[in-house]
Structures are given as C-alpha cells and as structure tokens.
C-alpha cells in the first residue's frame, strides 16, 4: 500500500518513528493529486508551495520532538468556505473568486498550531448550498468510485479528496448533511459535531444556526483524532459552547454490549432504495450480534423537517449573503451607472442560480406579512423536532438510519429538479435542526457505489457515536474498500 492510502494515525506512527518524512508524504500526496485530480477535480486551489514549506517545518518539529501532535506533518484539505489568510477563499462562487481573506478561521489556526500541512482548498456547492457539488460556480467534482456520479455535497470536494487519497484528512462543513451525505456517497467517514462544539469563526456563513465544521476521514479513529484538534470554546464565536473537550480517542472501544440503539422507522420507509435499506438492516443485525439492544422508534415530526429547513436556512442565508454587494471585497460589476444598478449587476453576475433561488426564498420568508406564517412557524416546528429527539433519547443512546436514501446519483441527473435534490438530505437535516452530533460510516456497496450508515447522538455525546461507529468498523471491512481510479 502506498503511503497516501494510509490513515493519519498509521502515518503518525511512521512519522514519529522517522520511517517517513512529512516532505516525502506531502510529495506523495501532491503527485497522487497530479495523477487523479484531472478525473476527480476535488480542489479549487492547491497550495503546493506553502504545503512543502509546512512539511519541512513539520519535519523540523518531528526531528526535535518539539510539540509533536498526531497531526504534525499530515496533509489536510480544507473546504473552500473556511478562511485562510492570504490564500483564496472562494466558496466556489464567482462573487468571491478573487477573495483573499485577511485572517485565518479558528479551525485553520488550530490546524497550523498542530503542525498539519494544508494541501489545498476543496470544491463545494456554491456557499455550501447543494447536495452534489454541481452548484459550484467554478467546476463540478466527480465521485472517485464512478466519475459519472456526483460526490455528494456540499463538502463534495473534501469527501472526494479523502476517497481518492488526494489528502489524508479533510475539513468539511455541515448545514443539512453537507459532511455526512458526501461521506456516504464517497465511502469515507464524516462527522458533524454538536452545534457549538467547534468554532464557526472564519467559516463563511450559509445558515448560522445550523452550520458546523467537522472531519472527513478514512476511518473512525482519524475522525476522533481530528476532532480533538477542532473542538473547544472560542471567545470569537459566541455560539461555541464552553464545555470540556474529552480525548475522543479514549472513546474508541470495541464494545457495544447493552448499548441501546434506536432505529428510526420513518427513515427506513418510502423513498429509501432497497439496496440502501438492506445494507442498513444488515448493519442493525451486526449490532445485535455485538450485543447491542435494538429499539424501533418513531419520530413523526421528521415529515416536516425538509420544509422547515428550507425556510430557516434560506432565511438566514438571505441575510448572510447580503454583504456580497461589490462595495468592499470580491467581485464588482463595472458596467453600472449608479449604486442600485451596481448592486443588481454584481449580484446577478456573481451568484449562481441555486444561491439566487435560496436568497429569494429566504427574503420572501422574512418579509412583512409572511414572517409569522413561514419563518416563525418553521422555528416552532424546529422545537417539535428537538422534542421528538429528546423523547427518542430517553429510550436509547444512539439513533441509527441510512445517511442518504440512495447511493450517489448521476452528474446532471437531479439538477433540473431541485425538490428531489433537497429530499436526498431527508435523513441528515433533522439532526442539524436539533443541533445534535452525527457520524456517517461506510456500511455497504451497491453496484460499486458506497452506502453510508448514520449514527446520531445526544448533544455533546460525540464519544457515544464514535464508540458505536468504531465497534461497527472493527467488525466490518467496508472502510477498507477503495475506489479504483
């Protein structure tokens, strides 16, 4: 096995034992990128030069055993909606195509402090709005398992980069499933932490009350390891919670005996394809074999989750995206005789159609006379969904469902039908509305395409879902499957 195929924890052993240098590893990853990137197109920006510099600095740290962390010298990809000082941060939008942030996002700062090597910025659906990365204003990304299929979205670039071994670890952001669904489509592990667990400072906002940054990795241990370096209170983010951060690696115990696992009836019914259902049912059997207790649970408010999400998220987005007006940064339309026309032209030329659709939806939902009927009502349903989760977690420790109702769909297959695209997030959206942690792990293959299993936990119970995911992974081989590129 070549070194870029390995996980971060395997590579950390080699790096610490001086059997491998970060420079060798980084160069191996860069040459892998040279070979496979033309087919995958996971990246928006590659930072080869600075990556080499960071690798050399990491090697110094390793050589002197100076503040070495499990991330030191490990190549990481960062979704292009997280600010990197002096490195283009485009959100895969034409409107920010030339944007150089004057500061680092808190998570990027943390990666740098841990000695990680930032290899590049990955593609996404424009401003993280989408489920296929086809809404990127720059170019689409292809699924490494089948390049005619989408990688999922919006963190499609990060998921594809991990699956294609074009990086070792990646950061994604998840607003309605944007880490977990591409993880499922690309056969990797994706973890969305509890809302408030990881700082959002420097994450370009899509829907502020739902956005959360998390890891995309090759196995569960790497997800725990990376989360250790992301989690924690940040004085720059008032919504980040001052709650102790455990060592998530301690949670990785291959034992789920007596663990109560609830499976969500509504998410194994209509809309879920037969191969996905059967893979998830096999996973349920596996848990039973391992000694877990399985409980059927009903969460009736889930029926309204997608509708609720498509009021709250666009409403917040319509306000968050107002600042892209051509006045201060980013693209400005030059053929404008006055201020109003400049606003119109800049935004008309700069935003793609999905972003425009959501800005219009959100603006409408917040308008005088409609606010109570739409936005306010959506907030009330959001509370009902939270209550449903609370009830469920009084009976179980972990909730289980498919991550997505289907495997990766074809490029262009759903672009003409946004509503059917929205429904591909039916299992992931309720989790964001309730602010809970959830992980997607590979649990099967159908016609050569990966299937994802979602495990949801109580707020700040990342350790429980990591343990459940780890036990499953230790007793199955799905995470070892690799796409043939």
């Amino acid at each position, binding site marked *: 096995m070549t070194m870029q195929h390995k996980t971060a924890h395997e590579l950390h052993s080699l790096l610490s034992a001086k059997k491998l240098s970060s420079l060798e590893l980084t160069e191996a990853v860069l040459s892998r990128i040279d070979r496979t990137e033309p087919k995958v197109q996971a990246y928006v920006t590659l930072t080869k030069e600075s990556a080499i510099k960071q690798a050399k600095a990491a090697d110094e740290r390793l050589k002197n055993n100076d503040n070495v962390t499990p991330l030191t010298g490990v190549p990481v990809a960062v979704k292009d*909606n*997280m*600010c990197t000082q002096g490195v283009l*941060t485009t*959100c895969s939008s034409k409107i*920010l195509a030339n*944007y150089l*942030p*004057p*500061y680092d*996002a808190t998570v990027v700062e943390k990666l740098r402090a841990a000695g990680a090597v930032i290899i590049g910025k990955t593609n996404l659906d424009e401003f993280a709005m989408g489920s296929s990365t086809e809404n990127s204003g720059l170019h689409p990304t292809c699924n490494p398992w089948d390049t005619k299929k989408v990688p999922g979205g919006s963190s499609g670039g990060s998921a594809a980069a991990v699956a294609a071994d074009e990086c070792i670890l990646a950061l994604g952001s998840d607003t309605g499933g944007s880490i977990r669904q591409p993880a499922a489509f690309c056969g990797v592990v994706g973890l969305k932490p509890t809302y408030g667990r990881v700082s*959002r*400072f*420097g*994450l*370009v*906002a899509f*829907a*502020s*009350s739902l956005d959360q940054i998390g890891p995309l990795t090759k196995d569960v241990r790497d997800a725990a390891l990376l989360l250790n370096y992301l989690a924690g209170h940040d*004085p*720059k*983010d*008032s*919504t980040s919670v001052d709650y102790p951060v455990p060592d998530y690696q301690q949670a990785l115990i291959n034992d789920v005996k007596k663990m109560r696992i609830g499976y969500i009836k509504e998410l194994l019914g209509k809309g879920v394809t037969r191969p996905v259902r059967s893979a998830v049912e096999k996973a349920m059997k596996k848990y039973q074999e391992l000694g877990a207790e399985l409980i059927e649970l009903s969460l009736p408010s889930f029926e309204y989750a997608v509708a609720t999400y498509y009021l709250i998220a666009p*409403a*917040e987005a*319509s*306000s968050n995206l*107002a*600042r892209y*007006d051509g*006045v*201060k*940064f980013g693209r400005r339309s030059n053929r404008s005789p*006055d*201020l109003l026309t400049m*606003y119109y032209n800049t935004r008309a030329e700069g935003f793609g159609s999905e972003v425009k659709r959501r800005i219009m939806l959100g*603006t409408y939902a*917040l*308008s*005088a006379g409609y*606010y109570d009927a739409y*936005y306010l009502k959506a907030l009330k349903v959001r509370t009902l969904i939270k209550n449903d989760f609370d009830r469920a977690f009084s009976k179980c420790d972990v909730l289980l469902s498919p991550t997505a109702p289907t495997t990766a769909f074809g490029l262009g297959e759903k672009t003409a039908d946004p509503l059917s695209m929205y429904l591909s997030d039916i299992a992931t959206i309720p989790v964001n509305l309730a602010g809970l942690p959830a992980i997607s792990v590979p649990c099967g293959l159908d016609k050569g395409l990966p299937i994802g299993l979602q495990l949801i936990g109580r707020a700040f119970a990342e350790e429980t879902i990591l343990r459940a995911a780890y036990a499953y992974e230790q007793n199955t081989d799905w995470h070892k499957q690799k796409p043939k590129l």
Partner: protein
Amino acid sequence: MLAMSKYETVIGLEIHAQLLTESKIFCGCSTKFGAKPNTNICPVCTGQPGVLPVLNKKVVLLAIKTAITLNCKVEPRSVFARKNYFYPDLPKDYQISQYELPLATGGYLEIEVEGNKKRIGITRIHLEEDAGKLVHQGAERIMGSEASLVDYNRTGVPLMEIVSEPDIRSPQEAKAFMETLQHLLQFIKVCDAKMEEGSLRCDANISLRPKGQAKFGTKTEVKNMNSFRGVQQALETEQKRQAELLDSGGKVIQETRYFDDQTKQTKSMRSKEEAHDYRYFPEPDLVPVEPSQEWIEEIRKTIGELPEHKKNKYEQDYGLPPADIEVLLSSPALAAFFEESLKLYDKPKVLANWLMGDISAYLNEHKKGIEELNFQPAKLVEMLQLIDKGTISGKIAKTVLVEVLDSGKSVQDVIKEKGLTQVSDAGELLKIIKEVIKSNPAQVEQYRSGKKAVIGFLVGQVMKASKGRANPKLANELLAKELGS
C-alpha cells in the same frame, strides 16, 4: 399661533446615545473619534466573510445603568436581531440591533417646564451598532456624486436607543426632555451626550389632534435635529405646518421629514409607502443577553444619587437658591466636591459661593473640570477656616486660591511664601496708621471737622499700604481712636 389653540400636539422621541466605551460593540476596535479614515477597523466590523460578532460587556453595563436611572425594568432576557437593508455604509448590509425583545422597558423621566414637573414615559431602551460614514464627491448625496468614499471607523460604535412614550405635548417639553436626559446621561457617565457632535441624536414623531379627542392624529417623523434649539425649532415648524394643513381642510400624510437648519423648514424625505421592510429576525450569531439580578444590583450600587434627588436635598436641607443648585449640579465632579467639602465645613452657602464664583471662573478660564486639578475639598475648607479665624482676609483669599489652583501647593505654603498673613497686631498696624494720617492731612482735617464718612477712604489707604494684609475691622477701630485723640 392662533390656529394652535384648537389642537393638542403629541410628540414621542427616539434618541440615539453613543455609549462611552473604549472599544466597539462587537469587536475590539477603538471607538476614538477623529482617527484617519479606515484605521479603527478589523475583519469583524468591516463584515468580512466568516466573521462573527462578540458582545462587549461594557456596553450592556452602561445600558443597564441608564435603564436603572430611567426607572426602567431591565429585561431578564433580551435578544439581538438583524435589520436588513442595503447601503454602502453598512458593511454586512444588515445592522445588528434589538427589536422584539429590548434590553429594558417601561420607565420614565421627570422634566420641568416653567416650574411644572411632568413624567414622560420611556417605552424601551435597546442596543445597536452604528453604521459607517459616507463622503460624497461632487454632490451632497450619493445620487449624482462622481464617487462616494466610505469610512468604517464609526461602524460598530455602540449606540443605545431610548424611545419615549407619546407623552410630550409641546416642542418646549421636547427640548426640556432632551436637556434633562443629556444631563442625566452625562451625570451617570454613560454618554458624553453632545448633540452638536452627534454623540446624542434625536428623531421625533409628531402629530396634532383636536383638543379633547382621544385618538391620535396622523404623525410625521422629523429627522436631522442637531441641537436642543434645533429640536424645539423643528417641532415648532412642523407643528405649525400640520396645524395650517388641517385648518385648510388638508390631511397630514404619514412620512419622514427632514429639518433644514438653514431655512428652518421641514422637507419630505420619504412616504410610508416607500418605507423599508427590514425583515427583522433573531441574530443567530449571538446568544440572548441574560443579565443576572446580582449584576443588576451591583450596577445599581455604582450609580449613586441622581441629580433629581440631589436637587431636592440641596433645596430643602441646605437651603440653596435654584441658581446655585443649577451650577453645582452642572457637573457630577463639582457636586461631589461640594458634598465632600460640606462634610468638613458646615456652611453650604459659603461653599456654594466659592464654587460658583472664583472656582467656576477659574475652571471656565482654563477649560478644565475640577477633577483635573490638584485641588481637594480639604484645601478649600482649610482656606475658609483661615478666613474665619482672621488669618487671611476674604480678599487675600482670592489671590491665595488662584495660586493654590495654579501650583497645586497647600494653602499654608502659599500664604507663607507670599507673606499674606493678615496683620492683626495692633502695634504693627498703628505704625501704618500713623504714616497714613501724616500723608493725608486734608482728609484728616475733614474728619475732624465732622465729615465722619471720610474714614472709609483712610481705611482704604491703610489696606493699600499694608498690601491688603491689614485686618480691616481692627484697622477701622484703631484709626477712629487715633483720629479722635
């Protein structure tokens, strides 16, 4: 004015007060006025992608202080909201403000007009951020200008909005309200409250109704009143305009009107139909403000006695006339100085005379506050006690005071250095008196021939010869004795 007698005027005020903090409301930038354009800025207050606001606790403290002073209820939970509108001076294209749930509600301010006291209700107090400043080239407004420049130094400066009930019944009352409020805000040190400099701003809603009618008439909102006089003038003008309109059978249109300080007229800015839909919704990047009862009590203790209470005390307990009270309460430091001195010297009127007279004159001349001088109540009291004992004369004391204020030296030192002790030694005085009698034979002759009033002139000569140090009472006695012999 004849027309006015038919109508009753109803006025409500909306006041913006800039809070006295070192840093801005949501970032660490300085609030200092007059810096070079765009130097007090950072990613947060210029609305860069990905930034988040963090509430400055001092801002909440100052607003709570105001709320307590204005007899308001500090709400246990208040929520920031976004007010959405596009303008180049607003970097995020929304303003963070409080909307449905303000920081404080339901208070009052007592005003006095022509000897009549009246309570004006306070509807609410809320917090918000200020916008930037636009400078237009080639035109006064953005329309028609060749270019417009924006300075974001002011963006994010903390503002407190105070909204009054429509309890004000005349422009004169409106002016009195603003003056009383200014005095109070300065007294509790939350705002320097200078209307001319814009640290205190005011908009007014004004309507007319036939006397005896309960229902309010149609109101207009008057903006751009930049002084107390401006408030009264603008509202008198608008009151007259509305009265004439109603008298001629016309209707007042609900609109915003701009007061032109040059022409003293109000002009229509925009009608209700053109009013913005601000699409308010709760700010998801901030958590609710939930001040503890203990904190509120702690703040209450720091406020001390308010001018209104002091006024009563000065009037009733110390028997001071209104003019004295006004001067003493014009500055919190002066009032504090007065009260500290009073603890050491129980003659309020004597203290007031010195503070209002020589000391105020000195402060005005040097444009300083009493707190800026090395001058303590003990020094003043020491000087007054020396006058009482006859060590120095009242006239000499004036000279001593200036020297003490200039040098910061002690009263005793100044008296000693300048040899200013009063001459009360009969032998020493007699020497001077004899000299005076010798050099003024004509006046001595007049006295002896019965014109007793001339003794005043002779005492004056003694004072002059002693450089003012002679004890005038003793000089008079000795002189009479000497002339009678």
